[in-house]
């Protein structure tokens, strides 16, 4: 975080910070960057990756096909369809 980036954020968020506030914000972000560097230096090579914050697992479904929805129902909200296709603005020249 430097004065150029902060100025941009100020404009985007329609804020106006005093010089003292600007110094405070820049110092605050510098501290947070240092915190992140501490984390980066921790050796996690032997730590198993956490896959989920909760001890949960998915349920699975048997491989049996069914067709509970009709195409017509699904296309009711479509701005444009043609012979069963959805129509979208042309994507190739």
């Amino acid at each position: 975080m430097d004065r150029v980036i902060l100025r941009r954020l100020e404009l985007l968020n329609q804020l106006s910070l005093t010089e003292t506030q600007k110094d405070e914000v820049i110092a605050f972000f510098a501290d947070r960057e240092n915190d992140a560097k501490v984390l980066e230096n921790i050796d996690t090579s032997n730590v198993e990756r956490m896959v989920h914050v909760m001890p949960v697992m998915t349920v699975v479904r048997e491989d049996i096909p069914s067709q509970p929805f009709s195409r017509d129902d699904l296309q009711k909200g479509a701005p444009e369809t043609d012979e069963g296709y959805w129509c979208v603005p042309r994507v190739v020249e």
Partner: protein
Amino acid sequence: MKYETVIGLEVHVELATQSKIFCSCSAHSYGAEPNEHVCPACCGMPGMLPVVNKRVVDYGMKAGLMLGCHINRVTTFDKKSYYYPDLPAAYQTTQWFAPVAVNGLVEIETSKGKKGVRIKQIHMEEDAGKLVHDIREDTTHVDFNRTSVPLIEIVSQPDLSSAEEVVAYLDRLKNLLRYARVAECEMAHGTMRCDVNLSVRPEGSDKLGVRTEMKNMNSIEAIKRAIEYETARHIDALENNTEVLVQETRRWDDIKGKSFAMRTKETAGDYRYFPDPNVMPVVIDDNWFDEIKSSLPEFPEVKRERYMSEYGLGEYDTEQITKSIALCECFEEAAKTCGDAKNAANWIISEVMSILNLRQMTYDMLTVSGKSLGELITLVSGGKVGRANAKKILAAMFDDASINPEEYANANGFVISNDTGLIDKVVKEVVESDPKSVADYKGGKEKALMALFGRCMKELKGNCDPQTLRKILIEYIDKI
């Protein structure tokens, strides 16, 4: 200066499941009306939740084990963001952080000998839809039948160095995945697709050159041509400064025989991968893992060894039969049923394979059971049915796999008659009706006897032991 080509492949394989990966829509869109197999989930309607198809995980594991991978017992799905009309949710559900299988090894054989190709990972993901641009000029038409059809992507390390090696690697993948019956792997049907990552460097250098990715090769031949073209383009750029190579994705145009820049290559960051909060981790417990492991087929080379040592088959016969797991299963069962492995192998190679070829079926499409084939072989070797009629029965078994050969032979008059009275009668008729052939034979023309023999066999509708007929025919003529 000499150069070497460094190639890594990303191979997409459509899994042979009945339903899609996250919803129960049919996964078979061939011949279907546009958007016939769609539901709110695979159309990306807001709020729809995916439910994982167990068989996709089964097949992902099988593929991983066949390719020598470590299976991640906790495997997770992630969202890969890209914005294009063939992807209605604007993200693809795929695997990034914990793919189902990692760190595999596949052995290939080329004219230069054997070589291992390392597999980086295999991940499960959903396919995208199809866009049609030529129905109308003002819009693009979208068909979501293929959306969410399950795929695995097999990512190799950059261990390949020529078109020959790439072809051998793809053949090996096809062979192994077909053996495990997880996929059809037919490039012409789009059930196997291959992107080629290629770079060129001075021979012996340990630094990789600028890498380009090529897409849109629809056949093995096209892949060969694309690799040769791209290698030449890279070397030309390095030697003659004809252009500056950039990391990009290129589209192969097989008719023009050239590759064209499509877009600068995205990096992982561009896709904003993140864990899909809608799919909880898939946990593969010991029971599930063991069930899959024990369902794996014997590897092709183990089978080949065994066919030669256990059944005494020659190298050619072994090579032919082990091309397909369906042929192998048919052969093993037929050999068991008729008790004559060499005979069973002959029948598979000369009759079964030729009917498959004639009907333009892949070997894996064989539905004739080994047991029925074995029974048919027993009928022929026991002298009950003539070979020509046995072929007719086999053809009928291709049309209806439930046919019992013996019953069919009885019902259609294909049983060899031991009624020598009938044979005598036919021989007498044929010989008397053709004195010229008889005279020719007596004058020393062997061919004339074959003509008479053929006509007798035809009159007998093939239901006669050839040796018996030949004996009776010669004796009859000699007596004249």
